């Protein structure tokens, strides 16, 4: 059970009781005390989230999904398929209009319910999905359309078929495409950013991250299983991995955080999506001023300096500077 959902449940129980008291006309001190308690509890639950709580927030069943972002665009015309094998429903892309800008949108799509999740493979992209992404990125570059991506995946699909069809090559191919497309690339980490499968569409000139999204080298469960042979220690692993938006802003891995309402983005999804679009729009307008050669050069230098190593003894920090 999702930790955040559990808390929302206990909160809503209190709120129901509060409503009942209100109905029966019971006011006064008792009522006020309960009201204060609900407020305090809400602040307590959601005011300052631990990394593990954010993992739960990023996986919250009501969290806005890529489809909600695509639905908020002025126009979206989906383009299907990798032209080789099949259309991967976990990776949705196509032409779109965002605040008047013609763009190419790419997104990782989880399902809202079990049935849709099965169809969309829980947002885990297969090689043909990454090949579709590469194809659409090249298309965007040919027609001078900026590339806008929405990242929400627990990771690339780890199945037999994906290995048979060269998942490594497909992800590497996506990254290679993003290294040379001479149009602005703006990535938004809106839910889960699961390792290489997320990065494949997030090598970008400007990386936006939702406050409660997570972006990690490994899933906390996987990390805990490797470190301690016990995936139940995922909350501890989440602390170690430095996967929150604040950590990543500090490392220079993300460029901007979009704050979420208390309790998470799903409490006011439309307004939140609007703020993400605001951030994307600002980035697009700034990046549009750069000629392609400068854009590519800046992109190269941006990633060139990320890291942290010692040169002999003094610590030289790339992304930490």
């Amino acid at each position, binding site marked *: 059970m999702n930790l955040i959902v559990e808390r929302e449940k206990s909160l809503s129980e209190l709120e129901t009781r509060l409503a009942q008291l209100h109905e029966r006309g019971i006011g006064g001190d008792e009522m006020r005390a309960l009201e204060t308690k609900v407020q305090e509890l809400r602040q307590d639950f959601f005011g300052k989230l631990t990394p593990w709580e954010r993992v739960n927030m990023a996986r919250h069943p009501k969290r806005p999904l890529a489809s909600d972002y695509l639905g908020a665009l002025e126009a979206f015309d989906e383009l299907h398929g990798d032209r080789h094998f099949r259309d991967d429903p976990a990776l949705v892309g196509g032409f779109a209009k965002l605040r008047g800008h013609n763009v190419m949108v790419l997104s990782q799509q989880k399902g809202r319910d079990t049935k849709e999740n099965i169809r969309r493979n829980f947002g885990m992209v297969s090689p043909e999905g990454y090949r579709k992404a590469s194809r659409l990125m090249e298309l965007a570059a040919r027609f001078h359309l900026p590339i806008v991506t929405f990242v929400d995946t627990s990771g690339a699909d*780890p199945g037999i078929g994906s290995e048979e069809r060269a998942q*490594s090559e497909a992800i*590497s191919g996506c990254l290679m495409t993003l290294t040379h497309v001479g149009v602005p690339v703006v990535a938004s980490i809106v839910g889960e950013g699961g390792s290489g499968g997320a990065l494949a569409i997030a090598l970008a000139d400007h990386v936006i991250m939702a406050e409660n999204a997570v972006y990690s080298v*490994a899933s906390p469960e996987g990390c805990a299983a490797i470190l301690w042979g016990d995936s139940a220690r995922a909350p501890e692993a989440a602390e170690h991995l430095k996967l929150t938006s604040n950590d990543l802003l500090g490392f220079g891995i993300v460029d901007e955080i979009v704050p979420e309402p208390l309790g998470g983005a799903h409490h006011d999804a439309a307004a939140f999506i609007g703020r993400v679009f605001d951030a994307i729009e600002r980035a697009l307008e700034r990046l549009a001023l750069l000629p392609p050669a400068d854009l590519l050069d800046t992109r190269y230098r941006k990633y*060139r300096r*990320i890291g942290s190593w010692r040169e002999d003894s003094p610590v030289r920090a790339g*992304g930490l500077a």
Partner: protein
Amino acid sequence: MPAPDWLRKRRERDASADDASLWQKCPKCSEMLYRKDIVANLWVCSRCGYHFRMHAYDRINTLVDGDFVEIGTDILPGDPLGWTDKRPYPQKLERDREKSKLSEAVVTGFATLDGFPVALGVMDFNFRGGTMGTVVGERITNLLEEARRRRLPCIIFTASGGARMEEGMLALMQMAKTTLAVERFKDEGNLYIAVLTDPTTGGVSASFAFAADLIVAEARAAIGFAGRRVIEQTIRQKLPENFQTAEFLLEKGHVDMVLDRRELRPALVRLLDYAVDRKRLATPLKAVPEFAIQ
């Protein structure tokens, strides 16, 4: 064959690098092998053809004509996340340094192969499972940039369990960094050959490894994106034995060739000969003063 100068110098520093044990058992066919015979046979079992994992310096020594000029040795790991699990990350690094006699999971430098000057990178599974942290990313990127500057072909031997968890997202970002370097390198008409050795998975296979012009896999090497155990846990069934082997990848069309280690060097020389104009290459290695052996 006496060890070349560059290797002897390293061995003097790391006295224990020459394994003292005389015999070694083949893990595949259980044959007891005389250690000197294993080495003479390029760390391949003379009975069943099992490929032992090779130390990076041994690998380089069996490939290059003579000299090897190492670069990047001043780029050393820090502890950006202040990571501790069962023990602190710096302690793990120290232990691996002692065990492997390496300063990190990749060795980079310049050498000649049958007269062809090349940039050479060799990863080593003995150091943190060959995982890519920021030092591996930085050294690989440096190697590609230096090779590009000199218009030299680049050969990288991969062996990796993926991205290095103890460096978190900084490790993951090395996938982006190295891929950017590969793209620039290739874009100017330079040849990049990846040799995938056992094992090559995760963040390394999904970035600079599969971005090569030519991909050669060493016989029987395990190569893939997801680890075997992860897939088995996901699908809840055992995978066939040949799944994710070099031979499996060849059949599926993912690699250009699969080679027995003993055929590797002549094959690389042939590939260089097809794709690289010897006359176009920069001056011989020794004439580059900044790469004079320290």
